[in-house]
């Protein structure tokens, strides 16, 4: 029978399947960070359990860590305790950890792929909803809560109910200046923040095949913003090429066996998806959000919508609340919105390609005098690579701040936060109220739009320069 990619990976990981029960699925890789793991390790200790497979587990410090002065102890004692707790737990349970200052430290979803431990056909989990990022390799990867973190630590499995499948066909060719961030923002605006609920999304079509691995990760990363726990892209030569030289990629005969298996990881011709939608890539423009959920987005050339023109009462109410929170007036062209801060970074857009793209736009220019710009590489290795290419110089000459790796202002758990009423153009993934700091206002954008906005001081694309 013709099956989808998600169904194939699922079938390959069933440990036990009984009618009336969730399937018990084997987990190939468990990524851990400081915020969602301490209570899980406590649970193991209370029950006298061990980590079943430390060799399929890896930890790093990202959510809570400062991006300045990382050679000094973490100033916030509560953050410090949480990071210290992770270190203690990793040592006690024999889990590999990449701590602040380590060359392999960074945002967990940047670290996995760059180490090559993210590979096609795997099941990957982490106590973080953006685990969907790893789906770009054709892995079934999804975020879990702390109870599930404990379950995976103890058993290397999870009981799960099989999700439905949705194909998202992105056909055509992107115009210059339009990126994978714009693709995913347009998809979320189309299907809504709950549109993917209960589904695994599979991104397909000619525009997806054209994307680099890093751009594919941006798309899969934000599957959760459409309500889907996981998003997938079938592996191809682009995937294999990316993986080949990575430290943990299979070697020799294992490589050949792996590639032979990976090549089978495609949805069969005629496979039936529970739902299918199509997006025309030719029509896409740079996209920005205007509201307080990632589905409230529009092309940059549009105007702030008028809630009175929205027919659905629920959506109308949400739009009214969003405009009040965002301090926006209906009918204002989006390009006239002034921003205070530009944030370039996160697991969505903090990889080397993102830093290169934005640097290309700002090279030789000066930042708008009313704007501050934070550039936070997704990992220590991304930072070192960027510095080797001289990108740090470009950002510093421009007038931006060049920081060390972490989640930083994406969620404002560390000192990198917006203040009340401060407005940001951000390459991150969530524009929720207060997400980047209490009272802060977020517009989600691509790295190209972030860079152009830092120059002009209003939401802009490179074409406006």
């Amino acid at each position: 029978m013709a099956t989808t990619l998600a169904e194939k990976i699922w079938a390959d990981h069933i440990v036990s399947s009984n009618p009336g029960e969730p399937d018990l699925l084997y987990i190939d890789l468990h990524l851990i960070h400081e915020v969602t793991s301490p209570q899980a390790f406590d649970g193991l200790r209370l029950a006298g359990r061990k980590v079943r497979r430390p060799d399929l587990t890896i930890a790093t410090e990202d959510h809570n860590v400062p991006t300045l002065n990382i050679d000094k102890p973490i100033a916030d004692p509560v953050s410090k305790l949480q990071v210290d707790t992770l270190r203690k737990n990793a040592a006690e349970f024999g889990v590999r950890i990449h701590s602040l200052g380590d060359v392999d430290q960074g945002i967990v979803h940047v670290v996995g792929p760059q180490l090559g431990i993210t590979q096609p056909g795997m099941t990957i989990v982490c106590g973080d909803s953006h685990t969907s990022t790893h789906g770009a390799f054709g892995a079934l990867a999804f975020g879990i809560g702390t109870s599930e973190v404990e379950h995976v630590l103890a058993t290397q499995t999870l009981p799960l109910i099989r999700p439905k499948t949705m194909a998202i066909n992105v056909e055509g060719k992107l115009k210059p200046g339009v990126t994978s961030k714009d693709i995913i923002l347009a998809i979320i605006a189309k299907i809504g923040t709950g549109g993917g609920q209960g589904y695994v999304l599979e991104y397909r079509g000619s525009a997806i095949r054209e994307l680099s691995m890093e751009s594919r990760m941006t798309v899969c990363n934000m599957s959760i913003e459409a309500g889907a726990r996981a998003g997938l892209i079938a592996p191809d030569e682009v995937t294999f090429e990316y993986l080949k030289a990575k430290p943990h990629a299979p070697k020799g005969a294992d490589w050949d066996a792996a590639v032979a298996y990976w090549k089978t990881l495609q949805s069969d011709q005629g496979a039936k998806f529970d739902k299918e939608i199509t997006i025309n890539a030719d029509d896409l423009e740079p996209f920005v959000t205007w509201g307080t959920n990632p589905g409230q987005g529009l092309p940059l050339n549009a105007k702030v919508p008028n809630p009175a023109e929205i027919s659905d009462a629920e959506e109308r109410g949400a739009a009214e609340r969003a405009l009040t929170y965002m301090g926006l007036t209906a009918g204002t062209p989006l390009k006239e919105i002034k921003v205070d801060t530009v944030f370039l970074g996160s697991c969505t857009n903090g990889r080397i390609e993102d830093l290169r793209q934005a640097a290309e736009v700002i090279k030789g220019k000066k930042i708008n005098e009313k704007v501050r710009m934070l550039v936070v590489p997704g990992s220590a290795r991304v930072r070192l690579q960027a510095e080797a290419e001289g990108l740090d110089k470009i950002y510093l000459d421009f007038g931006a701040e060049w920081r060390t790796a972490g989640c930083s202002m994406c969620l404002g758990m560390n000192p990198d936060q917006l203040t009340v009423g401060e407005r940001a153009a951000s390459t991150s993934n969530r524009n929720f109220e207060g997400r980047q700091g209490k009272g802060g206002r977020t517009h989600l954008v691509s790295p190209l739009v972030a860079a152009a906005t830092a120059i002009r001081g209003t939401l802009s694309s490179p074409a406006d320069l």
Partner: protein
Amino acid sequence: MDKYLTHTGTVLPLCRSNVDTDQIIPAVYLKRVTKSGFEDGLFGAWRNDPEFVLNKPEFSGATILVAGVDFGTGSSREHAVWALQNYGFKVVISSRFADIFRGNSQKAGLLTVVLPQEEVEAIWNAVEADPKTTVTVDLESKSVKYGDKKIAFEIDDYTRWRLMEGLDDIGLTMKKIDEVSAFEAKRASFKPKTLPALS
């Protein structure tokens, strides 16, 4: 986990859609390393507004949260479930929940009940008319009851059984641990390992 059969309490009507987990518990409150003490951060930003429903005396002591569509979107933080439980909530009712939030609730013993949007609104109306309206959520008969109304809800039999028996998932999986070992023996040799560390 405590056994869960039925719960009767009053309602906090949260008439908003897309209540994401950053609103339920903002990131700055996530630094705790315990599962308790998160009640202070529940709806941390919204609570500054004295008009916010959680601050209204007529709803104090409510144990059933009834919210708009797409409750619990965003971050996978189980802290959102703990914050609701720490504050005293036993049940959340909405017309649609985000997958991860719902999964977390079911693991931690916070009952999430999906009702059609018009039934959610009917409860809001009843509570607006009388904030002391008591609602019973009965897991055994899979129904929500208040006044003379009885509304059936769906929940998969496995989760329902687990909640009613107060069973812990890890304990259940441990009974199948031999099957896990058998699966591991057959895994392909090219699958990556994190140890020894290569970089």
